[in-house]
């Protein structure tokens, strides 16, 4: 069970009368009591997987091996990992144009992802989707989406499926600060709220939508405040702290699974690179960038685990080495894979027939 960690933590906090404000630290105290160490280590490993995967992407597209454009998840890893660590295999995730992290965190495999990004026949979408439509339906992904905000009306549909079919599945729906200004945001949150659907809306507020500062296009400081318009809880968390994200999502997922309806979570975070392929992010003040780089979610988690003795330097190195090797193997698979036969462009329009020329 995914939620054992938090439950044990809460129970034992009560028992021990631990009174610690910081949620992340509170969990770490529990861990010192040896509760579910592995969960935290696994989250760290995941963070690292997302990081190395994206670094390799950066590398590959610098070599022109990835066509089109690409939106890297670098810097936001704690959000996807923190949220998805609360999900079961059967749960759904609606992703965005910046979707590699969501895919990996939900369990997609790196080899078929690299292959898709490179437009290879062995990719998840047989080369038809690329970065902006990458998905692995077999692990509950509803897909990356090139239209900002469009997934926010699709996610409630998956939740409706779960509700009507009587499963306890929940849907995590990711989107950016910019997406919260779209009409789809309003309609999607309202319908999910009205119908008490099991959706966790996760806004990754990285302060910018392309070059546009969030504060220039909305008069509220926090996207979470918008939850009030739908009569659902709106919660803010530190999107660069995987433990805080985990804990915040835990409550929201629980609420959704119990049939109590959606929650809007806002994760304050930052992207390390520009918006997309060629953007250098010059519109962002240097000190702002520096400040956020110093809050790197992976370094923070590593340091914590080390300082609390959950991880030794050697463990850490071993994990890091392993992830790096896996990334290389996966990229190699993709590099060596063939491009699709052009005629396959006619497949997959319809379920039964192919299109004709």
């Amino acid at each position, binding site marked *: 069970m995914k939620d054992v960690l938090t439950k044990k933590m809460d129970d034992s906090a009560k028992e021990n009368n631990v009174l610690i404000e910081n949620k992340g630290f509170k969990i770490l105290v529990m861990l010192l009591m040896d509760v579910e160490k592995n969960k935290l280590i696994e989250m760290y490993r995941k963070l690292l997987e997302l990081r190395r995967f994206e670094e390799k992407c950066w590398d590959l597209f610098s070599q022109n091996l990835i066509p089109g454009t690409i939106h890297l998840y670098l810097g936001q890893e704690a959000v996807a990992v923190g949220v998805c660590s609360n999900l079961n295999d059967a749960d759904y995730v609606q992703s965005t144009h910046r979707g590699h992290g969501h895919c990996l965190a939900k369990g997609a495999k790196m080899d078929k992802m690299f292959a898709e990004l490179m437009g290879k026949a062995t990719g998840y979408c047989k080369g*038809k989707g690329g970065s902006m439509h990458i998905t692995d339906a077999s692990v509950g992904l509803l897909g990356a989406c090139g239209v900002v905000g469009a997934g926010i009306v699709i996610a409630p549909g998956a939740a409706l499926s779960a509700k009507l079919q009587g499963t306890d599945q929940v849907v995590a729906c990711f989107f950016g600060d910019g997406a919260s200004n779209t009409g789809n945001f309003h309609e999607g949150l309202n319908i999910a709220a009205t119908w008490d659907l099991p959706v966790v809306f996760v806004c990754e507020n990285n302060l910018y939508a392309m070059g546009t500062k969030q504060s220039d296009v909305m008069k509220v400081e926090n996207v979470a405040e918008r939850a009030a318009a739908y009569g659902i809880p709106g919660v803010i968390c530190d999107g660069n702290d995987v433990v805080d994200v985990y804990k915040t999502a835990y409550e929201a997922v629980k609420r959704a699974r119990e049939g109590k309806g959606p929650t809007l979570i806002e994760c304050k975070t930052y992207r390390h690179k520009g918006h997309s392929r060629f953007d250098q992010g010059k519109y962002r003040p240097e000190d702002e960038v520096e400040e956020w780089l110093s809050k790197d979610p992976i370094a923070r988690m590593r340091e914590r685990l080390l300082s609390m003795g959950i991880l030794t330097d050697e463990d850490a190195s071993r994990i890091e080495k392993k992830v790096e090797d896996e990334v290389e193997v996966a990229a190699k698979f993709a590099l060596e894979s063939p491009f699709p036969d052009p005629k396959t462009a006619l497949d*997959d329009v319809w379920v039964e027939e192919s299109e004709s020329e």
Partner: protein
Amino acid sequence: MREIMAIEALREAFQEEMRNDKRVVLIGEDIGSKWHGAFKVTQGLAAEFGEERVRDTPISEAAIIGTAVGAAMTGLRPVAEIMFGDLIALAMDAICNQAAKIRYMFGGQVKVPVVIRTPFGGGKSLAAHHSSSFEAWFMHAAGLKIAMPSTPYDSKGLLKTAIRNIDDPVCFFEHKLCYLLKGHVPEEEYFIPFGEADIKREGADVTIVATFLMVHKSLKVAEEMAKEGISVEVIDPRTLVPFDIKTIINSVKKTGRVVVVSEDIKRAGITAEIASQIMEEGGFDYLDAPIKRVASLNTPIPFSPPLEDYVIPNEKRIAKAVKEVLA
């Protein structure tokens, strides 16, 4: 033989399909027990199947379709309704960028068995926001199948096929003035396959290809023409995607003359595509005259009855076109 109205035929299709398969759910504004749908198609369905399966929504056209798409991707077979065809403009992204493209973009990993219903057409003095015919937009969006029944019989048979047998997104378009037309509808279950045109009247001199209400107007013209000794064949394609060009070409081989009639505006409308396909798929060599298109004038639909009558094709215009291709 039993004669019922199209709204009853559609309702019957829903009843049969909803009894047959729990995954069929209806999503739309005012389709439930308070209003029963703007045209009363869904009357009684909420009472029989409950509000969980016949879901009234907020006025959120994008979310109506988006939610249906998400549900279709995850195991339901939703039927989403947009109350008036013009309002489908508010859901174009959900329909044409999402529903239509998702399977393809994802390399066939998922299917999206959603049915999207909406009524098109004028003739009720509802003016420019409630009278449009936008079917051409969807014909031009790769990944959507399209039905547009003109009779109660076709309404039931095509809707049942759309819900039960087609795993791709279907745009199921209806016509406001066809809703109350009566026609023969068997009580037994039946399915009409997509991609099979129906020859509504056989004839030898001219082929009329028409959809929706224009089928009925064309049939009246054919009857009038018969008195003058002109034999008109009237073909209703019934589905735009897939499109049964073969039946039409066979007719053209016989008649050598074609009039294509539709209520959507002429410019870049479905008559253009139908005429072009006829030319390309073998019709050219058999044609004795250029194909005539009869469609609404290139204006929004006006409110006042004399104006509206002038913009939307009537029997007179159809008859004139028939005479012209015969000239």
